[in-house]
């Protein structure tokens, strides 16, 4: 029976490597046309920028991941452009180029990655507003900036990294607006130093932006993105209280990352609310094993830990799979991975505390702001439904609120609005956000074409 790895990013690549080393031939599925995942995404054929240009300080890591994957190609069953849209006991349902296929597995390692966590603000659906991750993909995979004059808004390490990458590539960066005050970050300095080179790189990006005259404002409150049919301005309130507006034609927006854990959810893996990450994360042991037989997790899809730890977690989960199959396990390699993962956890926690998700900002969203961009449902509609339901029923959790308002029922299935919607619901009900629960995953995890089969 086969082993199926879902996701060919850093976690999936290192998992495949260990399995191939043990003489196995895993199936590796990825929705993208090429391997590398989001962080080490490969540019299309015909593009010629160097790894150094594309990945900066991470060029060697990106090259190492790509080289490893290229060496594995003949030893694995790589299925690119393939969406795993459902997980049943022992079976992944996939679709590739419109053709459906059920892929049975004895073990699966889900390396499904992450996406940006978003807090809506007025005007965020205008053409010209993209996620931070999306803005980075536009540059990396297409050589394009999202506009001629771009503002970067949100919080987290990615905010400064992408702004830096844009400026280095020749884009005009109008401003970097961080919702986290300087003092919050400074308070984590000791914990962040555990990150060594990673922390130093973060400081370098910020220093580079400052020395190149790019305005950076910390502790801001975003107000609105203005424009008629496209982005024309961005306004915010400074920590001191005065408001400011810049003319821009694009805004990159993101408040940290959240796991893309829908397949783990469909598998029946229990989830816990991680108060430091402020995310729901699938429950697993340190080796990546879950309570569901044959289901293993690695990488940011199992909780945000970053690309370096994704590599270690991918390899670690593969050793768990080998153990589950009764095959030989290299105890020294495992011990070394466990040390890496444990050491990285402390830095990660400091990083999350240095750039906390501004939950209050989400909870305070104005009633007339669009919350669900799939179906243009406002924050006020969610609050009204929650208050109305409260009068007659037990306090609604997010899935009940979804039934009442369709928030989370659109085509993205709550990927984009879910985090902010939970904060609004919790603040309306005056309860901690973990008490309103999390949106349940539903197959297909992304829209798939439905074609009636012809009669034989």
């Amino acid at each position: 029976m086969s082993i199926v790895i879902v996701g060919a990013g850093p976690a999936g690549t290192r998992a495949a490597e260990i399995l191939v080393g043990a003489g196995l031939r895993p199936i590796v599925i990825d929705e993208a046309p090429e391997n590398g995942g989001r962080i080490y995404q490969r540019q299309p054929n015909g593009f010629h920028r160097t790894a150094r240009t594309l990945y900066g300080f991470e060029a060697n890591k990106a090259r190492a991941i790509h080289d490893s994957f290229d060496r594995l190609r003949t030893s694995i069953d790589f299925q690119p452009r393939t969406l795993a849209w459902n997980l049943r006991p022992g079976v992944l349902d996939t679709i590739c180029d419109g053709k459906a296929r059920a892929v049975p597995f004895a073990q699966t390692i889900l390396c499904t990655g992450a996406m940006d966590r978003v807090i809506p603000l007025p005007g965020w659906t205008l053409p010209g507003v993209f996620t931070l991750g999306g803005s980075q993909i536009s540059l990396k995979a297409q050589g394009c900036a999202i506009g001629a004059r771009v503002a970067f808004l949100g919080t987290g390490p990615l905010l400064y990294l992408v702004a830096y990458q844009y400026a280095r590539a020749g884009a005009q960066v109008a401003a970097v607006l961080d919702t986290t005050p300087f003092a919050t970050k400074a308070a984590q300095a000791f914990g962040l130093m555990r990150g060594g080179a990673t922390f130093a790189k973060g400081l370098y990006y910020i220093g580079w932006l400052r020395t190149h005259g790019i305005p950076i404002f910390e502790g801001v409150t975003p107000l609105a993105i203005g424009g008629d049919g496209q982005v024309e301005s961005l306004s915010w309130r400074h920590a001191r209280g005065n408001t400011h507006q810049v003319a821009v034609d694009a805004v990159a927006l993101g408040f940290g990352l959240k796991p893309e854990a829908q397949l783990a959810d469909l598998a029946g893996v229990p989830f816990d609310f991680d108060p430091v990450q402020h995310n729901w994360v699938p429950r697993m042991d340190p080796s990546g094993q879950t309570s569901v037989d044959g289901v293993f997790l690695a990488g940011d899809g199992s909780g945000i830990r970053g690309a370096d730890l994704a590599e270690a977690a991918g390899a670690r989960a593969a050793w768990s799979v080998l153990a589950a199959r009764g095959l030989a396990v290299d105890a020294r390699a495992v011990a070394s991975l466990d040390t890496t993962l444990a050491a990285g956890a402390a830095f990660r926690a400091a990083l999350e505390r240095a750039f906390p998700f501004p939950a209050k900002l989400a909870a305070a969203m104005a009633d007339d702001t669009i919350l669900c961009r799939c179906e243009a449902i406002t924050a006020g509609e969610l609050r009204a439904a929650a208050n109305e339901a409260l009068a007659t029923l037990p306090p609604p959790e997010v899935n009940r609120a979804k039934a009442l308002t369709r928030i989370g029922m659109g085509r993205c299935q709550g990927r984009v609005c879910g985090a902010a919607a939970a904060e609004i619901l919790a603040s309306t009900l005056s309860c901690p956000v973990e008490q309103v629960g999390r949106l349940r995953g539903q197959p297909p995890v992304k829209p798939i074409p439905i074609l009636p089969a012809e009669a034989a």
Partner: protein
Amino acid sequence: MRLQRLAETGRPAVSFMLDGAPVAALEGDSLLTAILAQNGGYLRASEFGDGPRAGFCLMGACQDCWVNVEGGGRVRACTTPIEEGMRVSRGMVRP
């Protein structure tokens, strides 16, 4: 809005039809890039009357970049490569 090409501009040109008018793109562009690198870029109109949309996540998650391709139906522009002679229409996407 308009995407700004900063690099890789030496790729061969591709021509395609956007809402019935011929436009140029570059080989290796996604459909999203090919359309939004034109002036006045947008991808679709929100079905709920709140204006034009031009995608958001660029990684196949948000489903906000759907366009219609003749013979191919409704596709996600961010994950669909442009092809010579493609006939693409924006406007209202029907559910």
